[in-house]
């Protein structure tokens, strides 16, 4: 059984329906990417999985359990964490406190300490900046912090929304290296990206999303070489 399996999912905001019967899955150990134009509903998909936007219909099953009726704050405990679009760092908490917030559902102090050290290894700049307030970090540093914070709950599946947005290519490469490394250690990843080329190079499989549904799915390298994808999303 897939780690995450979404079937005919519908959700939206008020009178607006954004997801119109979306289905996708992530197998354990996979990196899966969702690409699509602005406003296709990628962020809404991740927010619905995390429980911040209510699912109106369809199924979200994670690790064998139905998530539809689980409140947002319980979902983290099940092993699902998100680094959201726009980073959403706590601006008036220090870097260290931001990381501690990521471990809010845990109470094994030594384990938390260990994981903070681990994030400092992945992102040494965070160690230098650990006393600084989150709101004063640069965009790239905030992105690293958002990912590190999500990792603090030791998720089985990490949801990443636009981790490359607005960052210099060097930093994007670094962040993608970390994601690859985390995946090698067993964590599954669902990655939403504007930068379709990089995302497809990193991922095992990909989905193409258009106005609330999946229109295409295949192995990442197949999508990379598909002329329709190249024309629409890779700018060739």
């Amino acid at each position, binding site marked *: 059984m897939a780690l995450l399996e979404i079937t005919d999912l519908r959700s939206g905001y008020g009178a607006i329906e954004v997801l119109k019967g979306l289905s996708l899955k992530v197998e354990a150990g996979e990196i899966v990417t969702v690409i699509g134009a602005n406003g296709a509903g990628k962020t809404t998909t991740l927010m619905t999985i995390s429980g911040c936007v209510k699912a109106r219909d369809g199924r979200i099953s994670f690790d064998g359990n139905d998530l539809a009726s689980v409140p947002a704050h319980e979902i*983290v405990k099940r092993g699902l964490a998100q680094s959201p679009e726009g980073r959403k760092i706590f601006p008036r908490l220090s870097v260290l406190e931001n990381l501690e917030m990521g471990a*809010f559902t845990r109470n094994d102090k030594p384990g938390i300490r260990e994981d903070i050290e681990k994030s400092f290894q992945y992102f040494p700049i965070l160690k230098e900046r650990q006393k600084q307030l989150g*709101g004063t970090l640069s965009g790239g540093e905030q992105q690293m912090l958002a990912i590190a914070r999500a990792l603090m709950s030791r998720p089985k599946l990490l949801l990443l929304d636009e981790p490359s947005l607005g960052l210099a290519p060097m930093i994007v490469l670094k962040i993608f290296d970390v994601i690859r490394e985390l995946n090698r250690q067993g964590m599954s990843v669902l990655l939403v990206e504007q930068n379709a080329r990089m995302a497809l190079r990193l991922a095992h499989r990909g989905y193409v999303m258009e106005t609330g549904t999946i229109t295409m799915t295949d192995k990442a390298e197949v999508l990379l070489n598909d002329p329709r994808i190249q024309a629409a999303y890779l700018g060739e």
Partner: protein
Amino acid sequence: MQPILADGNGGALFWELLVNGLVMGSLFALIALGYSLVYGIIELVNFAHGDLFMLGAAMTYTLTALAVSWFGTVTPGGMSFAIVLGLLLIVPFFCGGANILIDRAVYRPLRRAPRLVPLVSALGVSFVLVNIGQLWIGTSPLSLENKAQLVSDDSLIQMGEVPLKWKDAVVLITVVPVMVGLTWLVKFTRLGKAMRATAQNLVAAQLMGIGVERVIASTFFVGGYLAGLAAVVYTLKIGRIEYQMGFQNGLYAFTAAVVGGIGNIPGAVLGGLLLGFIYSFGGGYSQGNWVDALIFGVLIVLLIFRPTGLLGSRSREKV
């Protein structure tokens, strides 16, 4: 509120007004915290907060009357001490609980509505609470002191020429530990961390696994608790309650919250104290005629030069 009468002795008057300012300031601060905590977390100006304070005063009166009918006459001493303690235990819980209920029934269903909707509802809640107060304690002022002399008129200590009266001491003895406790709660407890995170970014807090609805309910409880506490010590100090007392005190406290920087906890305390001193000195030296003009004059001038209040963050970090 009563103007403070000049007694002709300049130096002593100054010190008396200073003590009075400190005491009134602590009261304003307690109420202001309720505005600020709730605003900090859901950006709602809870206009009904002052009226919750009034209901706390009504509860204080009713419980005192009840105790008197049980025990007979109560004069300062062991029994009155027990009653004051009882009031300080019960009334804050009553107001905290009521505040949770108000949030659950009125504001929570509107959580995702445009900002103006809960704001107007808060005005509605304010009217409802005033009406409840009217039914509960009637329309004419009630004197607690006709029921029981819970706190003596004597001085606790004499500092030179200036007495520190028991009635003022009770306020300070109650407020200071509570402020320390609140600071500890917000800074060091799990709930406090969850409150700060939720205030800074509600969605991110949810993604961290924080039950934000429970945090919001707790915030309403804490705000109501402080209003209840303020209601008890206010009633003990002033000795007189009426159903409209929530409006003026609420307005002062809200002003204090804005002056300090709404959403900011030390700011609410600072704003409360500042307002208390303006209230006391302004009232003392002008026989009470200029208090409101002074307070709102300061508010206007301050907001021109520091629109976010004394301790408010210069820009709200919203990405």
